[in-house]
């Protein structure tokens, strides 16, 4: 099968066609408020007082967002990030994005008469860049150009029975077609890691996966807490999930059945095609931006919702430049938030569809949205801030 996408100079294919303005801050926001077709994001950490590893994670995320195939061209301004740490300098960020063959412009307030001068110059530049980007046309390309990321959240027992298996069908189909698919949430594979390790493409990959889980479990134990006071979340427990193991065993269904090709860091680009595990954290402000920085051109949130009430409209999690789909198998969630749900697989529970039939329908929806149909949350002009996943102490 195929979808209609924007072919980039490095051969990757976008499902969208934006001009990205980074890093986040006043200059980027001001430009994006005025110029259509641009994207930026709000962030909560600019790197000050962060260790080398964490600064590199911030840099990798910014570079990855710039390289994402949904981005036509990039403006990197020097006004708000980095505290002059070498990893975070605009020149470095710009240079690494340029390797993808994209146009990257640096905007320096000290050369433009200050902040307002930089904003004026940025608006002028961005208008030219979105106009140039608009001349690109979608072309028919194969599924091997899909790069997916997924999180399951507000999980309940519908997630493991029907919601995640539909995503698993999609993942198997895209991986079989030569595409790339990422899943993660290290805490939420505790109790199911042996099943994933058996599917590792090599003993080294199995070891990396088990090591990641072991480290996370040791961190959890070091708190001295019963993990059930933290995760499963109260909303998970209200939805019928009784232990972390039960949550994990349901959660891994979203990864389908393909071999696991590797274990990636947050926002690290997969070195090849196939299914990858990302050693990340489930927080929705964090996980999706990491997938997008790793190259995801479409992401899915598989929602349970058994413990949620009153939420009738669902905004997206922050994905910066990538379409985001809400999926659920919980009929109550679907009934409450019909206008927000892109895909419903509660049909598997009521017996009106087989898991494969539901999965096939999800696959068609994904191709449709990849080709330009808006996901439900893309119709809202709202984005929460991105929390880049930083793990080391700050000083």
């Amino acid at each position: 099968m195929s979808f209609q996408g924007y072919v980039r100079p490095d051969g990757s294919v976008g499902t969208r066609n934006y001009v990205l303005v980074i890093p986040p801050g006043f200059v980027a926001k001001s430009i994006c408020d005025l110029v259509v077709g641009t994207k930026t994001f709000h962030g909560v950490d600019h790197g000050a007082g962060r260790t080398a590893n964490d600064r590199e994670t911030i840099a990798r995320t910014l570079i990855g967002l710039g390289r994402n195939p949904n981005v036509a061209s990039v403006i990197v301004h020097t006004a708000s990030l980095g505290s002059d740490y070498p990893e975070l300098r605009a020149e470095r960020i710009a240079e690494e994005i340029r390797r993808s063959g994209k146009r990257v412009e640096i905007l320096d307030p000290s050369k433009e008469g200050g902040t307002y001068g930089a904003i004026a110059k940025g608006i002028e530049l961005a208008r030219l860049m979105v106009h140039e980007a608009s001349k690109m046309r979608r072309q028919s390309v194969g599924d091997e150009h899909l790069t997916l990321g997924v999180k399951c959240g507000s999980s309940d027992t519908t997630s493991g029975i029907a919601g995640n298996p539909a995503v698993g069908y999609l993942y198997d189909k895209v991986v079989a077609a030569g595409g790339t698919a990422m899943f993660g949430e290290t805490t939420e594979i505790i109790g199911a890691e042996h099943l994933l390790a058996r599917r590792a493409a090599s003993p080294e990959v199995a070891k990396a996966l088990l090591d990641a889980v072991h480290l996370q479990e040791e961190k959890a134990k070091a708190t001295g807490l019963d993990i059930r006071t933290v995760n499963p979340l109260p909303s998970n427990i209200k939805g019928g999930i009784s232990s972390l193991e039960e949550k994990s065993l349901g959660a891994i269904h979203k990864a389908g059945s393909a071999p696991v090709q590797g274990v990636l860091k947050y926002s690290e680009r997969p070195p090849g095609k196939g299914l990858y595990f990302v050693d990340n954290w489930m927080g929705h402000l964090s996980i999706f931006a990491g997938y997008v920085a790793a190259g995801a051109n479409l992401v899915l949130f598989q929602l349970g919702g058994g413990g949620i009430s009153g939420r009738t409209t669902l905004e997206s999690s922050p994905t910066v430049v990538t379409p985001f789909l809400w999926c659920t198998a919980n009929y109550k969630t679907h009934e409450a938030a019909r206008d927000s749900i892109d895909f419903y697989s509660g049909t598997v529970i009521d017996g009106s569809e087989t898991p494969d039939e539901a999965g096939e329908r999800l696959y068609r929806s994904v191709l449709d949205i990849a080709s330009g149909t808006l996901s439900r949350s893309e119709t809202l002009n709202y984005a929460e801030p991105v929390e880049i996943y930083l793990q080391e102490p700050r000083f």
Partner: protein
Amino acid sequence: MAAKRALIMHPSDNVATSVDAIQRGDAVAVPCQGTTITLEAIEPISFGFKIALADISAGALIRKYGETIGTASRPIAKGEMVHIHNLDGTRARGDLAKGRTS
């Protein structure tokens, strides 16, 4: 009246997931490998919650998806609801790790 439904994820499981509003005394039908297991619910079990398919002794493993999801923290009768009040997770338990080392 038609039996209420619960779903089993693997033939070796000793719990099934309710997909109906099950009341005390309801007959519950669990489709499994071409046949149907039938049992009586001895208490209400809401949509999405688990029902024990057999008597489970204290400390015994509780299985779903063909895997262990925890142990029984007290004896569980066939037809009873299985949740945090009678199932203990065993992984990432900092409280237990603390008990062992202090």
